């Protein structure tokens, strides 16, 4: 038994060691930074200032603006992705003709570097040079994709373009592991396709759907490249997301202490939401 325990931990050791160096240590150090007045420009040891950074960022309207922008972005993007992803996954599951080619093509965007996606859409949607505004103009529609009131929505649509494939991938995998029997039983009983989907497939798909929405939301929270490539936070601060705000505070204004504090406020909020979500899931699973 001890040899098995030793083997088990031996096998786990490399992952634990690397995670310790690459995640655990930076996380602890970032927390320390958030308690200091560390600036990239100043020499000498930073002073510990306690929770001062936290008080500062928590009362900073720009941070709350960045939080609400990010929340809006995540909700729009993930909601659209889930609906589209589910529809496309259902369609792809039945698709027989050129199966691998269709799947590979529809999954392709998620493999493209986000900065390339950002720059592509910046160009494609540009008021003067872009193909899409030109097409819309020929239809008599004048729409400024990066104008006030529209820019955040445009960024969310870019997220939809790139990451709906991720939803499709997970849901397709989920659909493929849905057992055939209950579905056939429903058909024998004369259930309509819609009824069978809603009452048989969807409940079986819920675990995958939950994980997919969770993973996508966590990833969408980190949106940086699209903002960096297109709006740089503008017009005004309409598209300033958390990740971009942190980058600006830390790297452009050299205020690492404050930037780390923002990051930990974000972490606290996200972890709280996740714990609440899991509580609810466990409760509904127990029912």
């Amino acid at each position, binding site marked *: 038994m001890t040899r098995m325990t030793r083997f088990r931990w031996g*096998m786990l050791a490399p992952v634990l060691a690397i995670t310790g160096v690459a995640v655990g240590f930076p996380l602890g150090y970032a927390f320390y930074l958030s308690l200091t007045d560390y600036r990239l420009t100043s020499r000498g040891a930073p002073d510990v200032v306690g929770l001062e950074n936290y008080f500062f960022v928590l009362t900073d309207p720009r941070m709350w603006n960045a939080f609400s922008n990010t929340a809006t972005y995540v909700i729009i993007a993930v909601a659209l992705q889930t609906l589209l992803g589910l529809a496309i996954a259902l369609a792809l599951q039945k698709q027989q003709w050129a199966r691998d080619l269709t799947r590979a093509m*529809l999954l392709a965007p998620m493999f493209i570097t986000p900065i*390339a996606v950002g720059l592509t859409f*910046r160009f494609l949607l540009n008021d003067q040079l872009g193909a899409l505004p030109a097409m819309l103009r020929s239809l008599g529609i004048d729409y400024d994709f990066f104008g006030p009131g529209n820019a955040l929505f445009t960024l969310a649509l870019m997220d939809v373009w790139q990451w709906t494939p991720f939803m499709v991938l997970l849901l397709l995998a989920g659909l493929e592991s849905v057992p055939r029997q209950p579905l056939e039983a429903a058909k024998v009983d004369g259930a309509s396709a819609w009824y069978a989907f809603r009452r048989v497939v969807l409940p079986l798909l819920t675990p*995958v759907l939950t994980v997919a929405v969770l993973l996508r939301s966590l990833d969408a929270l980190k949106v940086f490249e699209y903002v960096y490539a297109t709006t740089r936070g503008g017009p005004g601060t309409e598209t300033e997301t958390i990740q971009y705000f942190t980058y600006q505070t830390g790297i452009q204004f050299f205020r690492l202490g404050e*930037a780390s504090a923002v990051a930990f406020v974000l972490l606290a909020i996200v972890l709280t939401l996740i714990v609440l979500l899991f509580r609810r899931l466990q409760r509904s699973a127990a029912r």
Partner: protein
Amino acid sequence: MTRRVSPWGIARTLLLWAAAVTVAFPIIWVALASFKSPAQLNDPGLFLFSPNLDNWARVFEAGILDAAGRSAFVAAVTVSISVVAGSMGAYAISAYKAGGSATRFGILAAQVLPPAVLVFPFLTMAYALRIDNTYVPIIFAHLSFVLPVITWFLIGFFDAVPRSLEEQARVDGFSRFAAFRLVVIPQVLPGIGAAAIFGFTLSWNDMFYGLILAPTRETILPVAIAAFNTFRGVELGAMSAAIIIAVVPVVIASFFIQRRLVQGISGGAVKF
């Protein structure tokens, strides 16, 4: 074979065609733009024109292939470490329930960490250890998100391997580790390949860490592409060519791994 065409079938086909056009159009349009002259770039509706290779020449002169090479190097090192450590760890978690269900949740929870939390410690540590002009910080930064994802996928693949296989090997006199390396690993090799390619694209695609941690004079590919956006205004033609260089390899890779990824995920990677 004649089949009655149902309205659902038509809707399905239409949806897939619409999705395909939506995916392909931006990429094709940028590919076309990479062959346009500056004057032609001002005409967004131009689809037929005599192509020229000036943009491509500019991009190659700017050393985009070197940047791609550096990105590939960083990704290859990150993935090699992740696959070795990840497959061992994933097997311990799958077959020996190491760490219990907390481990699976912990791996998922690692996705919560915003890169903005981790990047500053990497930066200050890199300065302190005087390795700020090397690839070491960026490789560690990439390990922080590639290793958990690869491990997570591999747990799903190992779950699908019957336990009797290892037990048989143990009866035949293999040590536990030899059974793992010589009997179990070959069973999941296709899955490891898919996870490795997926991890490679994750590292290849990251810009945030690259922007802050990579050596300034020797940037990685995403940062090099972004540079066409800021340096002396926007060089649209050259930028388009650079985008296509970043897109083509991963789209080809995605063709080969998509089926394995679907299998791996449905094999259990989405369970807790």
